[in-house]
């Protein structure tokens, strides 16, 4: 059904509008009845009678416009909003952080977080995935304009489920602790945090519906039956170099060109557009490591001493929580040479504090980490993240 707004120019037109309402077969329903010339009359008209009503109005020179294109659509939207607000009433206090969730559940939880922390948390969309899913980033900010910022991402490799789950817990923790924890408060009083939790939503959806071990994006590769690009080899940092593959069927396929993946390009554009990002922390699993650039070369990064000392401290503070042992060092020393990675790109684009975590475990469960590990993993990683963020705060550049 449509709702038309008609305006009678004079008493004669007003009478015509009243007569329209009397014609039962047209089933016109006044939402706002005809009162005076010059005042709006709103009529709901079933689709099947729309043409007849419009022709009548036009033939008699009665001015009208379409107020509501489709009433049913509006009702559907309202139902959706109502259902959402019923869930909102449940609040982030009842969200089960100790379980793995679907994309839809995570996106809804984000809306709850934003609703509960107005003035601190907003949700931005920085782009769309290959399959047109929104790429959401949570922004934590207490104001200012273009403050120095910290970028965090989880889930760039979709099978690394502990990372998205840790991301949800951590984002909640940041929001909760502002105004309580002195470190979080100091950080957010001076800097902004941008947190992308589901960095590869297409891959994540695929791990839930089809293949739990899917790592890459889900982009179609021209001329190949194999799908997807490794989003952590797609960055413009020795793109195509060692540790990445030119074979579309490979798990480390770098893609046809740097930033070919919208999931990567969106972050590049965001960080470069922002212009004041001072740290990039990209979170993966598994193997319990904390690493800094470079992956694409063995030569130490100019800041490697400072980065190494900070990594040592973060790893110590992580271990203090549950005794979990991490190794640390440059990517190429600690794990393997890898070209085209997030942190190498960030570092070469002026982001000094570029780190990548590999969370639990060391291979016993690997990617299939039981949900009982989520909260312990997030809890132990938290002081390590704080160490890095505090260091960034105290060492402006």
């Amino acid at each position, binding site marked *: 059904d449509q709702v038309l707004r008609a305006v009678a120019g004079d008493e004669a037109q007003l009478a015509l509008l009243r007569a329209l309402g009397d014609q039962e077969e047209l089933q016109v329903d006044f939402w706002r009845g005809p009162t005076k010339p010059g005042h709006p009359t709103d009529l709901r008209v079933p689709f099947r009678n729309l043409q007849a009503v419009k022709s009548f109005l036009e033939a008699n020179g009665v001015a009208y416009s379409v107020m509501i294109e489709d009433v049913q659509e509006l009702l559907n939207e309202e139902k959706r909003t109502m259902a959402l607000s019923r869930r909102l009433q449940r609040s982030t206090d009842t969200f089960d952080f100790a379980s*793995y969730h679907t994309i839809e559940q995570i996106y809804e939880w984000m809306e709850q977080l934003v609703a509960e922390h107005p003035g601190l948390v907003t949700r931005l969309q920085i782009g769309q995935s290959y399959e047109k899913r929104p790429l959401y980033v949570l922004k934590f900010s207490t104001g200012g304009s273009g403050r120095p910022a910290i970028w965090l991402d989880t889930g760039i490799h979709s099978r690394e489920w502990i990372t998205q789950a840790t991301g949800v817990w951590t984002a909640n923790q940041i929001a909760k602790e502002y105004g309580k924890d002195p470190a979080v408060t100091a950080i957010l009083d001076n800097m902004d945090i941008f947190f992308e939790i589901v960095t590869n939503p297409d891959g994540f959806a695929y*791990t*839930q519906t089809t293949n*739990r*071990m899917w*790592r890459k994006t889900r982009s179609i590769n021209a001329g190949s039956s194999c799908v997807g690009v*490794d989003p952590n080899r797609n960055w413009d940092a020795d793109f195509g170099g060692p540790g990445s*593959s030119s074979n579309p069927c*490979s*798990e*480390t396929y770098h893609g046809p060109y740097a930033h070919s993946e919208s999931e990567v390009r969106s972050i590049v554009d965001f960080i470069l557009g922002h212009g004041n990002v001072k740290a990039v922390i990209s979170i993966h699993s598994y*193997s319990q490591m*904390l690493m800094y650039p470079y992956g694409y070369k063995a030569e130490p990064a100019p800041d490697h001493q400072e980065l190494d000392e900070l990594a*040592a401290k973060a*790893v*110590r503070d*992580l*271990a*203090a929580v549950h*005794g979990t*042992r*991490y*190794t*640390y*060092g440059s990517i190429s*020393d*600690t*794990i*393997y040479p890898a070209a085209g990675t997030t942190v190498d790109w960030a570092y070469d684009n002026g982001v000094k504090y570029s780190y990548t975590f590999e969370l639990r475990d*060391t*291979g*016993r*469960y*690997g*990617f*299939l*980490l*039981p*949900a009982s*590990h989520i909260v312990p993993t997030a809890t132990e990683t938290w002081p390590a993240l704080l160490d890095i963020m505090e260091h960034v705060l105290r060492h402006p550049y």
Partner: protein
Amino acid sequence: RSGSRMEAPQGRAAALATACLSYSRGGPGRALALRAVTAASAQDIDNVGRKYHLKLVLEDILDKDNIVNCTAEVLYHLGNTNAAPDVHFEIEGELKSTDEQDNTFYNRIRSLKEELVAQDIPDSHGNVPPEMEPIRALAQAAAGYVVWQNSTEDTQYHLAQIKHVRQVKRSDDYLEFDYMVLLHEFVSQEIIPWQMTVLWHPQHGVKVTQNSRQ
């Protein structure tokens, strides 16, 4: 020391030594995992290859307090040989006996009316039904053999998941299982399906009689 600098090749050699130890000492009642590398060094031997000297701490996942120290030597042969690396190890002290668990498992399987069949261990959420833990520990031990036979200095394998396991009835005393597993190779990040036929007996240990990359 709560964290350490670790060079990747040493980590791979340590993982390989652990795989061999798993195959040698593992079974339905014991799943050995690497807890820590306390020392590691590499030595190039002219015309032979590279030898790693390692000091490792292993733990039994099924009994976390059961830890044991080992020394291991891993020699990766020079050139493109198909020869598996040479691995020698020495365990300090004794591993706790698993006779009781082994016999319980053995008797349970022998008395099943129908051959055991299962899939996805662990499942997507990391869950392993308690009665499947021995099946998984056995797979871990057997996979140690496959990993050893297929490792190079540039690879590191972990058993990612049992996709499917089927018991095969035998006329002798051995238990036989046909496993289809997924191995995760760390450097390439590939997930590789692998078939293994595994024999086990409480007194005779684990044997992989057949295996093939799928």
